């Protein structure tokens, strides 16, 4: 055994201990599968509708309408949109991390109820094929008795600043690992809802 062999044995073990851990990995996999199926179903629906429209157009023998001019896409400034924070995570958000400062940027919600730890930094709209918009949501400890909402109720209403665009995203059954894809780049305000807990958070999504 060479010195490099010995070094690698120990070095890989040490590196492995720094690996990120998804406490709900099976759930993440299932949600990813459901999302892929939803995208596939949407694509199929578009194809079917396009095909049906094509057949109808041929039957009616009507001239094709002139293509509508593409709707202008407003340029959305990111200036003024809060940047992600770096540095040590709050102590209550360190579960699963090997140290206080894992080097992953994060954002706090307005009232400090939620922390969004952004693994997919920078967030991108549309999402990139090789890096997902992964966000780990952590709920801050709440004083007094807490009532956890029923599963399937952690969601966000996302509004793109400077536009009227608003979309709903069902994030998961509870704060935890998630993929949050949004349709356009810009400064998004997410109104977070988990049962009786509500808060808002700003997230930047960049164009690829």
């Amino acid at each position, binding site marked *: 055994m*060479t*010195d*490099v*062999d*010995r*070094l*690698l*044995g*120990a*070095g*890989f*073990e*040490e*590196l*492995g*201990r*720094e*690996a*990120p*851990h*998804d406490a709900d*990995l*099976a759930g*993440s*996999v*299932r949600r*990813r*599968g459901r999302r*892929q199926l939803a995208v596939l179903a949407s694509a199929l629906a578009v194809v079917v509708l396009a095909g049906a429209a094509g057949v109808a157009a041929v039957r009616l023998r009507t001239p094709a309408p002139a293509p509508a001019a593409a709707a202008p896409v407003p340029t959305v400034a990111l200036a003024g949109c809060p940047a992600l924070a770096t540095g040590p995570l709050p102590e209550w958000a360190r579960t699963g991390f090997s140290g206080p400062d894992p080097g*992953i940027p994060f954002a706090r919600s307005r009232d400090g109820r939620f922390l969004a730890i952004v*693994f*997919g930094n920078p967030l991108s709209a549309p999402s990139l094929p*090789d*890096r*997902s918009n*992964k966000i780990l949501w952590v709920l801050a400890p709440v004083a007094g008795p807490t009532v956890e909402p029923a599963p399937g109720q952690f969601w966000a209403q996302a509004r793109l600043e400077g536009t009227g665009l608003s979309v709903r995203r069902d994030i998961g059954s509870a704060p935890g690992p998630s993929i949050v894809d949004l349709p356009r780049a810009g400064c998004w305000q997410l109104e977070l809802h988990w049962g009786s807990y509500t808060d808002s958070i700003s997230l930047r999504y960049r164009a690829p």
Partner: protein
Amino acid sequence: MEFSQYVTARGPALERFAYVLTGDADLAQDLVQTALLKAYRRWRWVARVEHPDAYVRRIVTRSYLDWRRRRSSSEQPVDAVPERAGPDLADGVADRDQLHRALRTLTPRQRAVLVLRHYEGLDDAAIAGLLRCGEVSVRSHASRGAARLRASLDPTISPGGSR
């Protein structure tokens, strides 16, 4: 074994393997999820026919190599470098970041071979099967990777093997 039971039992080990292989937290999680989703969709077959670990590890490794191939065609492998005697690097490398930086100088295949050999404990035949190459190629990647690491960790050694 149910899929959830398998992920609960083996998920952390798969996450560690993917992270050691890629050195990138996001990519590692993405690859693990991708591989597990493939396994999930044919779980009855995977659990019955094949060892799930081997199946998932193979997908993670090949997906990583495919990803790196798409991302970059700029690999510049060094010429064959003979193993040589020298100071024991394991005694001298106190800074783990130094090792991490050195690992990033490896080509994807060199890193994959070294991880599969030294972290997963696979023999050359198993690595060759997983990477769909010959055992000679495995040994070549391992040798060149080790030489490149040695050169990166000890700047007094050139990639060509001379001081």
